[in-house]
């Protein structure tokens, strides 16, 4: 069954200075899934993202949203951008109103919604990212992590079905990353499809359902996260190692300490398995 919400088919894009952004790149994002796009700097992640939102128009190939080729007319782009929300890597590149509330209202007002609805959406979006108490603050008085949340709220207030996040964890400390992940989990539970760029293969394995590998402007592989352990070569081809938890789990399986299944997706799961294995050993003794 093909339930692709967004499809890029054989997209090529070359920047005016001659550098290659995308080179016959194809990728499909399933409705309601959690996706990670992983690749080195300059591999084309941001260029790909800008195609999803109609900010860049492919020179060859076709972008399909909900099965329909994207219409690049004013009305078509308006429809696409109201469905595909994009959170940029640097919050200072995205936030241009001075106050939090004003900035979050920018997108919904562009959709032509009435003031009452916009107020409602702004309040809901700020609540979703835990920024309600900062609604009246000036953007420049916020921390980097708070600015990122405001960026997400600004896009959420447009109620997109697909949320694109360009390296959202960059520059965030561990606590902020966990908070942001909790927000993203809530959004996913609410039915929003998520596509995120990252450099962190351990995080990608832990969080995503589908992992898309990028190199030299191409999506070299789209893998189910659960099968990632079987694709060490595909990862190596884009300069990535296997997630540490897979390597560690395999070593423990080889020594007969842990069962091969189910493979843990994160260190916490591995530790739980170890604890359980220890209890089982003690009871058998």
């Amino acid at each position, binding site marked *: 069954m093909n339930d692709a919400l967004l499809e890029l088919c054989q997209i090529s894009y070359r920047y005016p200075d001659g550098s290659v952004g995308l080179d016959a790149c194809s990728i499909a994002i399933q409705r309601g899934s959690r996706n990670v796009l992983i690749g080195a700097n300059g591999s084309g992640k941001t260029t790909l993202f800008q195609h999803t*939102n109609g900010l860049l128009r492919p020179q060859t190939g076709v972008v399909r949203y909900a099965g329909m080729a994207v219409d690049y007319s004013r009305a078509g782009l308006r429809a696409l951008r109201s469905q595909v929300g994009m959170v940029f890597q640097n919050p200072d590149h995205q936030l241009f109103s001075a106050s939090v509330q004003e900035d979050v209202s920018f997108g919904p007002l562009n959709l032509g919604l009435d003031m009452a609805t916009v107020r409602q959406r702004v309040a809901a979006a700020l609540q979703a990212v835990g920024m309600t108490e900062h609604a009246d603050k000036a953007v420049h008085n916020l921390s980097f992590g708070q600015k990122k949340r405001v960026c997400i709220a600004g896009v959420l207030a447009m109620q997109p079905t697909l949320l694109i996040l360009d390296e959202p964890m960059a520059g965030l400390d561990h606590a902020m990353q966990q908070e942001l992940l909790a927000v993203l989990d809530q959004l996913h539970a609410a039915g929003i499809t998520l596509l995120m760029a990252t450099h962190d293969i351990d995080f990608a394995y832990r969080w995503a359902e589908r992992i898309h590998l990028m190199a030299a402007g191409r999506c070299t592989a789209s893998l189910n996260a659960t099968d990632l352990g079987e694709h060490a070569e595909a990862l190596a081809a884009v300069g990535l190692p296997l997630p540490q938890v897979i390597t560690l789990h395999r070593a423990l399986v080889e020594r007969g300490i842990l069962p091969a299944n189910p493979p843990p997706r994160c260190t916490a799961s591995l530790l739980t398995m170890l604890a359980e294995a220890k209890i089982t050993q003690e009871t058998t003794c």
Partner: protein
Amino acid sequence: MLIEQSAYTNRWRRVSPAAKGLFTAGAFIAVFAANSPLTAAIIASLVVALTVFGAGIAPSCYLRVATPALFFLALGSLSLAFSLDIGDGTPALKLTSGGLLKLAEVGTRSLGSLAALLFLVLTTPLIDLIALLRRLKVPALLLEIMVLCYRMLFVFSAAVHETLTAQSARLGYATPRLVIRSLGGLAANLTLQVWQRAHALHLAALARNNDGPLRFLEPSFAHSRRDCRIAGLAGAGLIVLAVSWA
């Protein structure tokens, strides 16, 4: 930054900006309608007292914000009172006829106007002022420029600070010659950043479905009507005082 801090932390932060604007307008009218320098001085003092004791702006902060303006006011007032006399060949400062009276009139009015303006800016964040101007139907283009300039002011002050730090860390300001060189580099770097950030903001606006004018939500204030009534009465009181004080 002092103005910014006061505007966000003062006691009257949540008072409607329309009310504060109304009172400021009343104070402006009152100082210009004052029939004597003494009356204007009293009105100025009342507005200062209200800012310091009412809104809770620290006197030291108030003085620091007012000092540059007071300095220019002093210079301007002195030039009104004195003129340069070169009648007998040697230049000399001479008190102009009626100069002191003029000095008192203009000086106290200016002080009153300054007090009124400081009352507004020290109690109201610029974002609320812009929203107020929007409600007063100031042309959207001007307001968009104000919004972007205000936001970019902080983005670029951060960029300048970061570049200066990076340059200083590599001895960029060690000698006068290097200072000139580094400042040149800073200017060039900022020019590039302006261009890049303008492009990034344009993309961000497009990504959120913007098709021209920048639209923002107006902040709402719980007791706006009540605040405006009180401010209107206070402003009217000042005007009455100005015209009736002998």
